């Protein structure tokens, strides 16, 4: 056993951190999705192809690499569609798609040109050629060039271009400032993808793991900001961090963060056949801890904590969304119990 990151992994983390440090600061972090140009630049750095399988022209990055990138995004609260676009949609197409589908959709994702979104719920009908019905809320749906749409009962999936005739979408602004979409299909021609329910679940697990790592990153930032704040903020003539009640609260945040990181690491490092269960377990744990931590960070900031002015309030919003994606902690615990 060895938990030391490789030299390449350290470099990877540093590269992403340096890239984001130039663009994200306390004034803009977590306000909404990063500019499209920054997303493209991340693609040009080779980050996305690094994470995709070699068979599709990628470099075969593993879950343990993906979490390094995702954690850095979370740390600087750079809101991106990494999980949905690269790990879920492009990952699935890269593994199960035809050469044509890979060329059409995965290549542009690698270059940061396309955003792909995943529609996993709603009332959808598919007759083998055409798609009808309406999706539920689709994260990053307004920015997507194409959708991977899960068929009812997850009997496979189809690919649909956002430009297809008969496709309409309605924007839905979410708490983290991202714009999702409800997508309507009216006899839309769809391109079937040879994917089983297990293929879908695996792709979702990889994406969900990235969102867990992103939560860890944002939790770390909120933790650090809070520790700074309670040392700076003075009331009754002393730093509030000198009150034992506050010290114990801060100590709990540290404990929560360590426990959460352990679950994330385990989910990233288990064998592939244990991945789905372990990601579910990590999600159930971390999603809960993330909200508790955000709530305490808010509380320890007093009035400042409920404003839009500090990263803590915006981080809270982002954690609210991340913790509820893919069914959230509730669904994760229910799956574990069954």
């Amino acid at each position: 056993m060895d938990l030391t990151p490789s030299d390449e992994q350290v470099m990877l983390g540093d590269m992403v951190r340096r890239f984001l440090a130039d663009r994200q600061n306390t004034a803009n972090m977590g306000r909404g999705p990063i500019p499209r140009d920054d997303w493209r630049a991340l693609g040009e750095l080779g980050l996305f192809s690094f994470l995709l399988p070699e068979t599709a022209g990628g470099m075969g990055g593993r879950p343990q690499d993906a979490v390094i990138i995702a954690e850095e995004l979370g740390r600087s609260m750079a809101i991106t569609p990494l999980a949905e676009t690269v790990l879920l949609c492009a990952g699935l197409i890269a593994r199960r798609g035809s050469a044509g589908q890979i060329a059409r959709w995965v290549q542009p994702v690698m270059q940061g040109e396309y955003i792909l979104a995943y529609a996993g719920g709603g009332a959808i009908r598919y007759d083998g050629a055409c798609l009808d019905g309406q999706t539920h809320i689709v994260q990053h749906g307004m920015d997507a060039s194409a959708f991977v749409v899960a068929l009812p009962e997850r009997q496979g999936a189809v690919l649909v271009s956002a430009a297809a005739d008969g496709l309409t979408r309605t924007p839905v602004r979410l708490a983290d400032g991202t714009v999702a979409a409800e997508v309507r299909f009216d006899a839309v021609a769809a391109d079937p993808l040879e994917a089983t329910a297990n293929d879908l679940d695996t792709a979702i697990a990889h994406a969900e793991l990235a969102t867990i790592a992103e939560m860890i990153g944002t939790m770390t930032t909120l933790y650090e900001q809070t520790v700074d704040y309670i040392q700076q903020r003075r009331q009754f003539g002393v730093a509030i961090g000198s009150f034992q009640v506050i010290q114990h609260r801060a100590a709990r945040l540290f404990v929560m963060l360590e426990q959460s990181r352990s679950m994330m690491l385990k989910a990233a490092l288990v064998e592939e056949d244990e991945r789905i269960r372990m990601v579910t377990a990590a999600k159930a744990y971390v999603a809960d801890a993330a909200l508790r931590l955000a709530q305490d960070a808010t509380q320890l900031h007093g009035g400042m904590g409920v404003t839009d002015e500090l990263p803590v309030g915006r981080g809270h919003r982002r954690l609210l969304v991340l913790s509820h994606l893919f069914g959230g902690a509730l669904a994760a615990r229910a799956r574990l119990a069954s």
Partner: protein
Amino acid sequence: MDLALSPAQAAFRDEVRAFLRDALPEHLRHGARLTSGVFVEPDIGREWQAILEARGWLVYHWPRDAGGPGWTPIQRWIFEKECAEAGTPALPGMGLKLVGPVLYRFGTETQKAEYLPKLRNGEHFWAQGFSEPGAGSDLASLRTRAVRDGDHYVVTGQKIWTTQAQFANRLFCLVRTDPEVKPQRGISFLLIDMASPGVTVRPILSASGDHELNEVFLDEVRVPVANRVGDEGQGWTIAKFLLDNERGGSSFGPQLIADLARLRALAGPFEGELVTRATRLALEAEALEMTELRTLIELEAGTPPGPRTLVTKLIASEIRQGIDELAVDAFGLAGLQLPAERPFYGADVPAPVGSRDAQIAAGRYLNSRAWSIFGGTSEIQLTVIAKNAVGL
């Protein structure tokens, strides 16, 4: 011992219920349901205020000699319970609940005659200028200076977290009139016209996107000495009286019970863990309602309320936050939407995914974190309970 309403109390309840059935317009009920912020939107609050004033029930918690209807503590509770169940809007609280009682208790006859009628008819909309950037939990360290200049004070300083100051035309304010004495002794209570030269309001957006909070800058604002309530140096005593009203002036239990029942109707039936969470919250709210009632029954019998009253705001905050978190979970993905437009009952807000109640859930969740912060944080409440109730 007996918990049943007396025949007279039951008749009173029926009277209130009948009034609410006739007098509460649907758009106000709707607006109250779709308010994301912590405080009532002024348009709704004012309209409800006028309806209650016309019935003579607006200042239901004021004593008769101050113009109230002379209700007993239990009558006030019955009224609040019925309002909660009917889904009325809240009232603009800074004036009616906070500065009103201060005025009838500490104000001069001239001040009462000048301010109480305008408070009741809505001409004056009040904001509370207590907190400062450096004086939150440690309120007594406030630094806004009021320097005497003939029959005026010249007031300079900064207030923060001033709820709805953007709508207010009057500010009640704690200022330092004497920097030499012990901090609590050097504070006075002033009424400031927001239109005075030198008053500037700057908005503070909440993480939810709501605009409820503000900074208020006071730059050599001239305030007549006649606008001081109480004596010079009596501000702290008045502030404590006011803060007691802020934390415990009305009952929290009935509203929380009604809100939980409403959520159950809108987002239920709950399944799995949500059932357990809803049940826990319901139990806590039921206990709170009874705790509050115990105090009111004792008050009615003339027994001074003990330290038990300290429990209510703390527990109410926790239940409120629990309900609003439950709502987000109950609405699932739809509970994550958060449009930027306000108010939620207004024409500009886009069509919701699911329902309006789902659309408002995330904003409510974020805003309700403030409950354990304003009016004294939960940590401060616990310290006070440890000291005054536990005796440590």
